[in-house]
């Protein structure tokens, strides 16, 4: 497999996909369409938009802020007229480079399409624009005992449009599923500017499950301009447990046993000792510094069910040598534990100039083996790799701390990351559980998919995005022989097959 393009976008662009400078006429037309306040084209203004939460980097040539679906449609039509690629972006918190302008061109930032358009509490639906922040949906409906279930760690800032594009998860995915399980309908803008609605308010219209296709398609098939989400009812009772272990293996075996015994908590998160000490240094969440690992486990439901599940879980923890199992006594304690979990990436960020948060999935029964291998891989490449992850569904998030200014170290970080993801696949797992493929793992896709699989995915891609004008260079491998979707050479819109 050829070398990846991670963080070497300029090299890659020079080789493959640098188009001629954007026609200034496009920028003029965009300003006339949206007003100058909604168009950024100066280099210093664009810098912010060349990053997301990943280790990738790519700069758009112009950033626009639409306010309506019609704006989006007109922007897309203009981009098509000038043969310039388009990428959608929410808050830019993504971790796989999904919202980076790999082919340059126009970046549509949905931050100003951030209205909740309709709340149908009776039928547990909300109709929202893509720039609405994930947590704001819950805030708008919690007075009625409802909430929006997908809860990525970045839920205070990430947008629902980004969640839909990446099919985002979160700790409570274990019981309630990914974003796709909570979307009933979408309004889309296709690459030719056509506006189409798929799905239905009730979420059960006859026909192919187009919502199921578009959610998680990483902005490569259409731009999402309106989302009808399903709201969930808050559980009557919640119990949050903190199980403390002196050995990582005991914690991971607890998860395996809990799964095998048929207990599915609402969430089951694991932090290893190294990570939890960083968290304690940062926010003092109450994780014991001398432990090797903790499990943060939450059960929900009727009072009677939550009580008995919590008791059964505590027993399994103890049988696996938990030295202590604490139960949060009130909402304040519970919030503090979750604050520790949600801020863990930030806490680790204090330890090194940069960190690389991986996202791989393994069958849950392979957890002890996978953690041992991650440790060994880290050692081999000279890194202490932290682990803070959704243990209950086998979704690993190893974190590699590195200094991006040190080219050699960066290369080792990438090598370690790739080895870990390959290990996940070799254990029967998948490349990504919730962050998406983006431009982070597109070259690894052949580990899971055959030429026939790519052929079909390519036909689906081309059925909606025939010129690869939407989010080029994502999901599909760019290297010869796999995927066949690559970036056009100089003079053509990026992302199109040669």
């Amino acid at each position: 497999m050829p070398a990846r393009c991670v963080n070497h976008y300029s090299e890659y662009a020079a080789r493959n996909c640098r188009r001629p400078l954007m026609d200034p006429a496009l920028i003029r037309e965009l300003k006339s369409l949206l007003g100058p306040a909604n168009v950024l084209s100066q280099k210093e203004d664009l810098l912010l938009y060349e990053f997301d939460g990943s280790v990738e980097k790519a700069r758009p040539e112009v950033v626009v802020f639409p306010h309506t679906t019609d704006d989006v449609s007109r922007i897309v039509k203009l981009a098509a007229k000038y043969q310039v690629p388009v990428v959608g972006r929410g808050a830019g918190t993504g971790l796989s480079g999904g919202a980076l302008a790999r082919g340059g061109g126009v970046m549509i930032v949905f931050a100003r399409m951030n209205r909740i358009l309709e709340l149908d509490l009776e039928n547990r639906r909300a109709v929202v624009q893509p720039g609405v922040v994930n947590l704001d949906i819950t805030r708008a409906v919690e007075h009625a005992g409802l909430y929006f279930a997908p809860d990525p760690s970045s839920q205070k800032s990430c947008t629902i449009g980004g969640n839909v594009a990446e099919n985002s998860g979160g700790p409570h995915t274990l019981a309630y599923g990914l974003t796709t399980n909570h979307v009933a309908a979408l309004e889309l803008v296709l690459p030719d500017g056509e506006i189409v609605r798929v799905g239905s308010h009730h979420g059960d219209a006859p026909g192919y499950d187009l919502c199921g296709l578009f959610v998680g398609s990483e902005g490569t098939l259409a731009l999402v301009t309106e989302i009808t989400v399903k709201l969930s009812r808050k559980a009557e009772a919640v119990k949050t447990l903190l199980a403390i272990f002196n050995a990582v293996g005991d914690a991971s075996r607890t998860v395996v046993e809990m799964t095998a015994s048929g207990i599915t908590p609402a969430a089951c998160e694991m932090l290893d000792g190294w990570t939890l000490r960083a968290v304690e240094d940062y926010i003092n969440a109450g994780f014991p510094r001398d432990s090797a690992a903790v499990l943060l486990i939450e059960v929900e439901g009727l009072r009677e069910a939550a009580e008995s599940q919590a008791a059964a879980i505590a027993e399994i923890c103890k049988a696996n040598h938990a030295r202590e199992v604490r139960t949060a006594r009130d909402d304040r304690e519970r919030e503090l534990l979750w604050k520790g979990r949600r801020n863990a990436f930030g806490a680790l960020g204090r330890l090194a100039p940069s960190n690389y948060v991986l996202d791989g999935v393994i069958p849950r029964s392979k957890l002890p083996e996978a953690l041992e291998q991650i440790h060994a891989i880290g050692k081999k490449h000279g890194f202490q790799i932290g682990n803070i992850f959704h243990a209950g569904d086998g979704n690993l998030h190893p974190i590699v701390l590195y200094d991006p200014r040190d080219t050699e170290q960066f290369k080792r970080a990438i090598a370690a990351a790739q080895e870990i993801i390959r290990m996940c696949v070799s254990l029967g797992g998948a490349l990504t559980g919730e962050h998406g493929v983006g431009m982070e793992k597109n070259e690894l896709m052949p580990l899971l998919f055959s030429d026939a699989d790519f052929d079909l995915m390519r036909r689906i891609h081309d059925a909606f995005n025939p010129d690869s004008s939407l989010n080029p260079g994502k999901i599909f491998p760019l290297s010869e022989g796999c995927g066949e979707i690559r970036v056009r050479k100089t003079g053509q819109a990026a992302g199109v097959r040669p």
Partner: protein
Amino acid sequence: MSSVADLSIRLEKLVGGDRVRAAESSLQDVAIGGRTPMTVLQPRSAEEVAEIVGFAAAEKLAIVACGSRSKLELGMPPQRYDLALDMTDLRQIAHYDPGDLTVSVDGGMPLNELAKTLAAKNQFLPLAVPCSSTSTVAGAIASGIDSTLRQQYGTARDFLIGAEFVDGTGKRCKSGGRVVKNVTGYDLHKLLIGSLGTLGVITRLNFRTFPLPESRCAYLAGFPTLEAALNFHAASLKSGLPFSDLELFDPEFGALLAGFLNKAGGSASESLVAGECHVFASFEGNAEVIQRIQSELRKRSEQANASHSETLDAQGSERMSGALREAFDLLRSVAPSVALLRIVLPQVTPGDLIELQQFAKKSSQRSAFILRACNVAYLALLADNEDAQTNAALEQVLSELFSRVEAKKGSATLLHAPLWLKDRISVWGTRRGDFALMQRVKQAFDPHNIFAPGRFVGGI
């Protein structure tokens, strides 16, 4: 296009003589709306399926994949039908990892056989679909037929985690995987659900499995009026109590159910009172949970003026659940002429349902009605004869029902109807705005249009 004799010879070369059936009785077994294929093939493996599809694609032969054939009538009869694929020999469990709560199973595996394997490990798959004694796993998925456990466990899209299938070019493809959380690549397997075999031939399906509950129990309450029953139903839903199933049915459906239960033997039918509307709620959990739900339901049913109510034990609950699971099969065969509508409304108000039901009755037809989980209702218009006047009334009522449901921003689908009626009314309702996108999906999966052409929405 080849002649039938020539075709049989070439197909025999492909899969062996013992795998090709062309006798009239075999063809009739797989007839759809009176249409039969030229031949029936019974592949032994996914590789053979791919070879057959590749051959069919080259020869432009139309294929319908069959499992137990219990739901072949769904949708429209195919416009072309050359080959039937009998998939029942693909029936292995490829992987079962009880510790991971995942299973990977061949499409032709009967659901009840899979259930036995899973039950041995105290697990199950929440696909409680009709024709349960024969239905295959892939048939249940491709038909998209409702599961009675949807209220708690969702639809197949919530627990189908991957699939292998043969696309319209004869290539073996896959989507998803065998882990419970996975966003790698497009979720193509979701498109297969309810696609009636128009996108590919499903060869294997991967599911998340679930632990069998400690116990299951049910509550049945009878009401003198539909309105009272609907109020209880709505109050139960609003309570936030975790039901695995919650169904409301009218006296006509109650009578059908009683007949079915009587035929099967046992005593559960005694719980159904003639002339009343009933609400059935099933739930699961430990003894304390069961007791709590029962007690809350009792209180609510009294407040809603139930004329009678009772708790069904595990056995009674299973019998009633089993009978309700067969609602589709029960309703389609209850009268000489039946039009069975599946209706989904964004919001189910008592007023809406009473209006629909009264409208159905206006036509002098008999009707039976059941409101299922998640705003899904089945309304069957029953006619005892098929004379011109009755048929005309049936067609008119049905057309107006479609219009009324669509005016309420709902969807209606005709699950079962006599062929003449299917020819006159769109079984899928009015074409939706996203139809062109569905055509693009079909074209991508099946570029030669060989999979059950015309069977699906809008003639796809």
